């Protein structure tokens, strides 16, 4: 049992000074079966990482196709991919292809990347480590939810093969019950993916409650775990409503039971209530883990205790709870009653306050810190920049008057890309670089990391800030061609679309470059022999485990004597503080 006092060197366990022959979770058993049927939360995390990245790049390619088509007002780029006798037929076939592209881009990115990315990959890998536990509460359930994820993804691939999907990721009835594309296959896929998300949530809630290290009270767990805990609450309480909505949609198409389909006497606005009751909390499932990652990276890379720990933890949980009351702001113009819209708009403003508190606290953490501009920190700072724009533009969409003009235009597209890509994706990049050495025991090339962070930032802003301008000028969403627009609007739309397409190329290149140098570092990166080789270490418990961690994380049960952010560089004689 090493006592806390001599924990000057972060690597507490004997293995830290051990040599290469000490087995870590990666090389303990290299057989395929040991990977496919592993119960080790770290290996499951890596399997999630691989599949999540595959679908991210697949969705990214679809996005590039869409952007290239929109470079010019008319229908031209996609007409090369379709067949038709004359120009009109080509244009209509290309329109169908375009509709399938944006639908699959939306569905794949949301269900297969954004929802599982940070919780399933870094949550699975680091939650037990940060708690000082050997594994999650139900390892077999954890593996089961990974294979449900794979099964759901297979259904999506089957949808691709059997006629695609052209209903938009929202599956709005009555269009989704009347189109002849493979709606049942994709809804069933999303239904199964929902269970993977629920079961991961169950696992995390039980682990955080029951398997914390000795003396690790609720105020000593890292903020990344507070974020994951709030996310799991949403996953458990919101996803079932999506499950029942999609099941009812499947019955609606197969049996025509008439709950949502007006032809049989149902009410399509009722479907929107069902759908958005899940889908708004789902956007918090996507962004809360990103908040957790940013809280970790900002404090570790400025070697300073996070500013306002209590407020940030409380705001994570309050965002999760209030997130359930605001879904109606997606339906202000959809025939929802005016009084309900009034109520939803009022509560939506209440959600903006905790988000603002978080951003202010991160910036306050930088004050009097010791900041180094490495890859995770650059990504974290670009997160704050991009997420602030995303959050502030949310105000325009929450206000009743302006939402009428801006709803279903490119303003909304830009808003949720700023929050999803600028937020969750950039935080994902920050997390990958922050924990890369700890996960794989190898270093990525720091210069490449910084270059990729900067280019992602530039490409992203070019792509999506132009869409803000286009959106407020009235360009509607999901439009294949915009050539019949009146002249003065046409010139604005064309210029903005062109800037956006160029930006998307830069963003695409930057992300491929990131994938390249990270995979390169897996095989040729500088090996990490002991913790002194690490470029940075934190004070939360995952840094006390070996690098890369041993199969059962810790050789002896670590005790949480100090909080996760009590860095040794903090000079308590400087005064101030709690």
């Amino acid at each position, binding site marked *: *049992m090493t006592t806390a006092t001599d924990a000057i060197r972060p690597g507490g366990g004997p293995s830290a000074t051990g040599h290469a022959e000490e087995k870590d979770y990666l090389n303990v058993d290299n057989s395929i079966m040991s990977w496919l049927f592993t119960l080790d939360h770290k290996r499951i995390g890596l399997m999630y990482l691989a599949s999540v990245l595959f679908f991210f790049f697949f969705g990214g390619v679809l996005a590039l196709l869409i952007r290239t088509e929109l470079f010019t007002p008319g229908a031209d780029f996609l007409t090369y991919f379709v067949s038709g006798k004359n120009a009109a037929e080509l244009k209509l076939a290309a329109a169908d292809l375009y509709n399938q592209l944006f639908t699959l881009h939306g569905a794949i990115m949301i269900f297969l990347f954004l929802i599982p990315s940070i919780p399933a990959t870094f949550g699975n890998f680091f939650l037990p480590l940060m708690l000082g*536990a*050997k*594994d999650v*509460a*139900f*390892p077999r*359930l954890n593996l089961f939810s990974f294979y449900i994820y794979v099964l759901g993804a297979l259904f999506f691939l089957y949808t691709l093969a059997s006629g695609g999907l052209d209903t938009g990721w929202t599956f709005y009835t009555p269009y989704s019950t009347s189109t002849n594309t493979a709606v049942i296959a994709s809804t069933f896929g999303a239904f199964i993916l929902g269970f993977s998300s*629920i079961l991961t*949530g*169950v*696992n995390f*809630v*039980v682990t955080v*409650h*029951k*398997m914390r290290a000795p003396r690790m009270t609720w105020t000593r767990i890292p903020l990344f775990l507070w974020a994951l805990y709030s996310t799991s609450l949403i996953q*458990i*309480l*919101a*996803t*079932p*409503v999506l*499950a*029942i*909505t999609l*099941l*009812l949609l499947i*019955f*609606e198409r197969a*049996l*025509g*039971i*008439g*709950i949502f389909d007006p032809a*049989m*006497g*149902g*009410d399509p606005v*009722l479907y929107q209530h*069902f759908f958005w009751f899940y889908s708004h909390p789902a956007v918090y499932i996507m962004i809360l883990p990103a908040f957790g990652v940013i809280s970790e990276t900002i404090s570790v890379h400025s070697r300073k205790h996070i500013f306002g720990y209590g407020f940030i933890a409380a705001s994570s949980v309050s965002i999760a709870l209030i997130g359930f009351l605001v879904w109606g702001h997606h339906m202000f113009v959809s025939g929802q009653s005016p009084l309900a819209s009034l109520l939803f708009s009022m509560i939506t403003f209440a959600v903006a306050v905790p988000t603002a508190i978080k951003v202010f606290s991160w910036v306050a953490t930088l004050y009097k810190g010791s900041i180094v501009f490495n890859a995770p920190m650059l990504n974290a700072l670009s997160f704050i920049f991009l997420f602030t724009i995303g959050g502030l533009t949310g105000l325009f969409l929450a206000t009743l008057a302006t939402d009428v003009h801006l709803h279903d235009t490119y303003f909304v597209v830009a808003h949720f890309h700023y929050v999803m890509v600028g937020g969750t994706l950039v935080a994902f990049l920050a997390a990958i670089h922050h924990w890369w050495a700890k996960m794989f025991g190898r270093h990525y090339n720091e210069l490449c990391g910084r270059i990729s962070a900067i280019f992602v930032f530039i490409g992203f802003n070019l792509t999506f800030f132009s869409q803000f301008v286009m959106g407020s000028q009235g360009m509607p969403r999901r439009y294949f061609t915009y050539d019949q627009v009146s002249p003065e609007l046409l010139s604005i739309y064309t210029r903005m679309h062109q800037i956006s397409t160029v930006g998307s190329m830069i963003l695409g290149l930057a992300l491929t470059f990131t994938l390249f140098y990270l995979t390169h570092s897996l095989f040729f990166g500088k090996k990490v022999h002991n913790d002194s080789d690490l470029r940075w270490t934190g004070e939360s418990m995952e840094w006390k485990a070996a690098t890369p961690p041993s199969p*059962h994380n810790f*050789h*002896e*049960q670590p005790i949480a004597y100090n909080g996760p952010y009590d860095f040794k560089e903090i000079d308590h004689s400087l005064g101030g503080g709690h």
Partner: protein
Amino acid sequence: MSQVADHAHTEHPPHLHHHFHSSAQQAASAKLGMWVFIAQEILFFSGLFMAYIALRYLYPKTFLAAHEHLDVSMGALNTVFLITSSLTMALAVRAAQTSNKKWAEINLLLTIGFALAFCVVKYFEYSHKFHLGIFPGKYYAYTHIPGNPEVFFGLYFVMTGMHALHVVVGIGLLLWIYLKTRTGAFSAAYYSPVENVGLYWHLVDLIWIFLFPLLYLVK
């Protein structure tokens, strides 16, 4: 497998997984996991009840006219079956807690029996409706109910069908627990699986307690 220091005084019980420190922690985790799963199931069925409320609001007369075609006596019989199966399930869990293998097996068999009876009654109810031509959704072919009966029966079949599916899954779980009880796997020290299946079964009964009045009784 290195032992955790504070675990030395009791030998390693067979059922304890390596990543838990004590069987108390494991049992508490299993129970919390099950209750979280039950919360999720409740919200799953909430969608169906919300659909019921919305459609009843839209079609009050149809609902009144159509639900007279549901047979109250069969519904009441099913309620009795489910409540008794809930009782026998609770007794089975109690028997497992007191390491009383014999009574645990008897109660489990009774629970499975009542569950099967529920399914049989459900089969008769459905077959009678199909015989009348009352099929879900667009296949509906019974002309004697005014208003929009397709919607009511569509909803009826989805709600009771989804509940029946959960009953069938419950029967599978009960069989699995019954077989494990026969091999003597459960005792006062380790009865979490029986307890969790019991919680799931009571949830199924809970759902029916609300389904029965809403669909069969309410005028």
